[in-house]
């Protein structure tokens, strides 16, 4: 991506489930991003995919643990945005 040349971008992997998987049209993707936090990353991804869920509806996990929206992202992180759950 062009803006990646103008910032200190780092590689991350995003996995998609349920509604987000269908809207992204894929179950995961690797990308270089300038996003510093999951919140910034979701904003960036919404520009590429027709995601309808607002961040307030989602939770975030990094490297298979729940985390906050402002947790700093590091190179190689695996990020998952978790739509409203419906187990049971």
């Amino acid at each position, binding site marked *: 991506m062009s803006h990646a040349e103008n910032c200190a971008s780092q590689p991350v992997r995003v996995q998609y489930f349920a509604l987000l998987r269908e809207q992204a049209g894929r179950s995961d993707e690797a990308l270089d991003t300038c996003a510093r936090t999951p919140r910034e990353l979701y904003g960036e991804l919404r520009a590429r995919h027709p995601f*309808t869920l607002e961040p307030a509806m989602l939770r975030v996990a990094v490297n298979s643990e729940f985390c906050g929206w402002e947790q700093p992202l590091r190179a190689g992180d695996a990020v998952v945005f978790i739509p409203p759950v*419906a*187990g049971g």
Partner: protein
Amino acid sequence: MERFRFSDVPLEPAALARSLADPACGGYSAFEGWVRNHNEGQSVVSLEYEAYAELAVREGERIVKEAIRRFGVARALCVHRIGSLGIGDLAVWVGVSAAHRDEAFCACRYIIDEVKHRLPIWKKEHYRSGDSGWVNCERCAAPAAREHEAQVHHERTHSPRPESRRLLP
């Protein structure tokens, strides 16, 4: 000891119950969640469960451990289905064995309630109308989703050349 797992094949409650047998236990309680043929006014014909298994198993183990510690029960296990299920199928099973019935009931209730709220598991319902939807996800997202669908439909309907459709993302 394993306390939470997923299964992509039908669950067998009798065998699961036997796995919790303990000579020190006089009480056993289980909860079975079944696939219901209706939800929020819609007639449901089948559904699919999807899970973020890596995180769900970790969190599921935590929930069952919490129940064991909190209510002092001897053993507890939860198994959740993933994949396609029909009406009446067993979707989730929770079993608890304890010295006495009271703590078995309480731990069982705690586990199913926490599982429903905390685990990254999603349910897509297929309706008699031919429509389908992700439970708890669609209503909040419905207006934008319909807009997107309408746009895709428009592109498909009015695409002048069939090959141009292949270029769409």
